[in-house]
């Protein structure tokens, strides 16, 4: 297995793409124009101070500060803070009322189904209000910032395609197939090793990529380590998420979904490489197919039926967790929301299995026969 991984990592282009991705990530994250690092830091400190006061006290403190500071950017921040504190304090009040109502409703629920649903919602809200509002606000900003970076979802398949492109073509291109295919363990073992190596590499890249992204925005927004264990509902974007999940678990889930996409790309690369035996074709085709799928998803973003179909299909859309976690179609017989995500994972895995089977058949065909198959395929197309 380690030899297969070495074959993939030996290439210069892989390291160039890795380094370029990290540089792009750094440049783009620190050049986000709408919020500068000093503004965030200053806002963070002020917010912490104001949130500890009651609404009236906070208002008068902000008014005093407004008189004291003449600096224009500070004034802007303070005005923003004033709005934010006011709205949060109101929300806090609303939330308390809402919770009280929910408790009351749960006590008088007419059915077991309704009671469970309400208890579930109460648990989510309670978990959210355990955290300091200042941290929650920071987390909101951080997630809004993160969701702005759509290209993060497209960069990942590109890295994986660059890494995996030669996985099944390297033997044909180097001429090693002549001695490897006739070895005792032969093509079947080689195929197994390659598939496992592809999945291991995808998993590693996925974990590194996800961790790197999170660590960067965690540091940039000065979030505490504790916030990793806050419920995902703390982030405004995910406040309607019906599932119990911490930020840390969200991070793991993102990595897992990216790994599944990596495995899907491994299967796709295997099929294309087994047919054409060329790294460049494998790279172009996998990037093209995943790119087309993502573009179609975006093109029909405003058509609910199309979005639902794409969501259910999963495939390269899986790491875009927002829609899976914030919207759900139905609840199951136990009164819990149906986890659409796992249905889409099952669908993706089925497609992956079909691709792996096709690749296995193509890869284990005798070399010359395979070439003839390709010729026949192209002849029938023309």
């Amino acid at each position, binding site marked *: 297995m380690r030899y297969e991984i*070495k074959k993939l990592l030996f290439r210069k282009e892989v390291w160039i793409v890795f380094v370029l991705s990290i540089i792009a990530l750094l440049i783009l994250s620190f050049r986000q124009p709408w919020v500068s690092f000093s503004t965030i830091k200053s806002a963070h400190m002020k917010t912490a101070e104001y949130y500890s006061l009651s609404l009236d006290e906070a208002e008068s403190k902000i008014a005093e500060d407004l008189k004291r500071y003449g600096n224009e950017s500070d004034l802007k921040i303070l005005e923003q803070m004033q709005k934010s504190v006011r709205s949060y304090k109101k929300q806090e009040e609303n939330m308390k009322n809402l919770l009280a109502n929910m408790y009351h409703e749960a006590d008088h629920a007419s059915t077991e189904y309704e009671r469970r649903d309400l208890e579930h919602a109460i648990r989510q809200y309670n978990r959210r209000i355990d955290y300091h509002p200042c941290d929650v606000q920071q987390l909101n900003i951080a997630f809004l910032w993160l969701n702005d970076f759509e290209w993060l979802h497209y960069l990942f398949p590109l890295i994986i395609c660059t890494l995996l492109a030669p996985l099944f073509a*390297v033997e044909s291109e180097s*001429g*090693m197939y*002549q001695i*490897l295919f*006739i070895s005792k363990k*032969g093509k079947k073992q080689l195929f197994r090793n390659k598939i496992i190596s592809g999945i291991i590499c995808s998993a590693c890249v996925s974990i590194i990529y996800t961790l790197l992204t999170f660590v960067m925005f965690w540091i940039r927004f000065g979030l505490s380590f504790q916030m990793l264990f806050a419920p995902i509902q703390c982030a405004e974007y995910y406040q309607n998420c019906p599932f119990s999940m911490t930020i840390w678990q969200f991070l793991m889930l993102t990595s897992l979904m990216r790994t599944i996409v990596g495995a899907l790309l491994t299967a796709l690369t295997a099929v294309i490489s087994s047919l054409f035996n060329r790294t460049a074709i494998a790279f172009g085709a996998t990037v093209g197919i995943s790119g087309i799928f993502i573009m179609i998803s975006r093109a029909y973003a405003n058509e609910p039926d199309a979005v639902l179909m794409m969501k259910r299909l999963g495939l390269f859309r899986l790491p875009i967790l927002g829609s899976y976690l914030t919207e759900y179609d139905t609840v199951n017989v136990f009164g819990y929301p149906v986890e659409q995500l796992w249905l889409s994972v099952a669908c993706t895995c089925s497609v992956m299995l079909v691709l792996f089977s096709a690749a296995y058949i193509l890869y284990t065909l005798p070399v*010359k*026969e395979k070439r003839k198959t390709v010729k026949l395929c192209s002849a029938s197309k023309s």
Partner: protein
Amino acid sequence: MLCFKELNKKYGSFYALDNFQTELDSGIYALLGPNGAGKSTLMNILVGLTAPTSGEILFDGKNTEQMGADFRAKIGYMPQYPGFYPGFTAMELMRYMADMKGYPRKERDKRCLELLESVNLTQQRDKKIKTFSGGMKQRLGLAQALINEPEILVLDEPTAGLDPKERVRFRNMVRKLSEKMTIIFCTHIVSDIETIAKEVILIHHGKLVQQGNIPALIKEMEGKVWEILPDADELELLLEQYPRSSLVSRNMQTVLHVVNDEKPHNDAHACEPVLEDVYLYQFGDDSV
């Protein structure tokens, strides 16, 4: 015992192998033929890279295709142009091949070092293959073919890219190995095999043309090899007239060496045939 039975390989209407059959025991068998004669196709079918259109190969009476991994475990193959992963070192490649050939892990490193030593690559064992010369790659190709202690060793044009000193060394090594295994030495360079081959198999247009030991093949050529000392005007004419001819140097004179059933010239005199004459005789225009 390796037995090729009525082997055919057809690409469209073209026969790369045409009813090829022979039997091989231990020792060195030279498979001799011009380019495109079907040697590589035969080798590819033997090692399992290509399936025959019809016919079969039997090893000790068992069909090699049905034997699958058991047969592959008995084979060592050095292809014509061995391509390796450029980022691997010689030792890494040997270890990798040992794993793929199912060689026991405990003895793997010892075996790899022994083989690298035997092909004179010990000093380069930790160097990347991309820095190797053609000759070094050929030697590494041989070393990897021997890892699994094969019973059948297939060498496809193994001396291509080797300098004269390495060729001699390679031949000696192959001779030593032939005591324990069947070696199929596929080449179109007669000098590579004339001193070491137990038998020569001549193949042309996918068909077995002739098979036998070297003295017997040479004996059949007696009375068919001629030498002429032509003048300058005649030389060009004779060369055109007898394509199975070559110029050789005898006592500081250029002599025309002709392979022909009939006496080609009044001044021609019969001479001692060599293996190259058998090659020229059989492959005629294709070989020159």
